[in-house]
């Protein structure tokens, strides 16, 4: 399984979580991140892909690279058309969970990454975008 940059990787079943993790690991390595950063990125991705699977059933992930004068970055987008998050602030609190995890998905992913943005509309779906930067 290969995935190109800026291409959608569909998440439909549990097994896709492991596949998506593997892909994210490859991209992060290609981008030049060190092992600790790669583990952080892959773990955050794992949390967010699981959120898609558990709450929305299906959705997709996309990987893109950022280029700036003094730094480069990796951006991961996780999107679904699931139930949406009614109270984003609450969902960002550590320990908040309605599913089967430690409830660290969103707050933990934010701590693992440099940036995390959520767009969500009840009944329409959720998009989470995370970014990790690397100084040139």
């Amino acid at each position, binding site marked *: 399984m290969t995935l190109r940059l800026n291409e959608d990787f569909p998440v439909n079943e549990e097994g896709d979580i492991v596949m998506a993790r593997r892909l994210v690991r490859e991209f992060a390595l290609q981008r030049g991140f060190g092992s600790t950063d790669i583990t952080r990125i892959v773990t955050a991705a794992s949390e967010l892909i699981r959120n898609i699977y558990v709450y929305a059933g299906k959705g997709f992930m996309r990987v893109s690279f950022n280029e700036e*004068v*003094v730094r480069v970055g990796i951006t991961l987008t996780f999107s679904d058309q699931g139930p949406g998050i009614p109270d984003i602030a609450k969902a960002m609190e550590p320990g908040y969970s309605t599913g089967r995890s430690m409830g660290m998905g969103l707050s933990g992913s934010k701590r693992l990454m440099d940036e995390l943005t959520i767009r969500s509309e009840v009944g329409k779906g959720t998009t989470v975008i995370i970014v990790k930067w690397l*100084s040139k």
Partner: protein
Amino acid sequence: MKTQSQIHATGGKGERVPAEVPPNQAAGSLGSDESYRLLVLTLRDYAILMLNPEGLVATWNPGAERFKGYRADEIIGKHFSIFYPAEALARDLPRIELEGATKLGVHEDVGWRVRKDGSQFWASVTISALRSDEGVLIGFSKVTKDLTLQRAAEARIKRQSDEILELATPVMQVWKGVVMAPLIGSLDSARTQQFMERLLNRVVETNSSVALVDIMGVPTIDTKTAQHLIESITAVRLLGAQVVLTGVRPGIAQTLVHLGINLADILTRSSLAGGLQVALNILKLEVVAKTRGLKE
């Protein structure tokens, strides 16, 4: 102004450039036609202007207005030394630059320039002499680019890399199974991450059971710093090693208690020696004084 000069002050809102300049005569190399006018208008990141042979501003573009702050009607006809800070004027820089351009064709410089509001910006400046086909000096073109952001970014990178070198915390093996890390300076989250990485890797490399983290050199501890410390300690524990926090001065102890930071789960000692003793206890080692047996 010389009568044969083909550069005219056009005034207006700075959107006009001298449409009067005949393409082949005055500024033939500039291609002063419609496409040149559009080119200058679109180059918003550059101040592009022309000076007459005496150094008076003859034309002005939106880029110039945008980052020097003057409107065309305010600046046209003024001497270009208005853009220079006092220090540069003291060195007679404007005259030197025009002379250089006259002699060599082009003069380039990087330095501070002044905006209308008095603020300074870091600029790269290129002044080129403009000559007629007969070789008569008819003025200068001056292209200025604002490099303030670039300079700030470069300075920031330099400072950061200096800080990283300066603040890199060594993690030393002080005994078989014991590593020691003296923390110096304040601990923000970026530095904590680095410190954690280094500490954990060293614990694994040296196969240590105890890590002494000495905070004697940490000036103050706030809730955030304490949180970072606790995180580092938690992470070390996950590896199967223990952390002893040493160098807890009275002031730091007071702060920690007043802030309500609970370090009850964490082994702490006021001195490094005390910490080392704890480490040896954990390793089930004992330091025994050698008895000489001769003198009393």
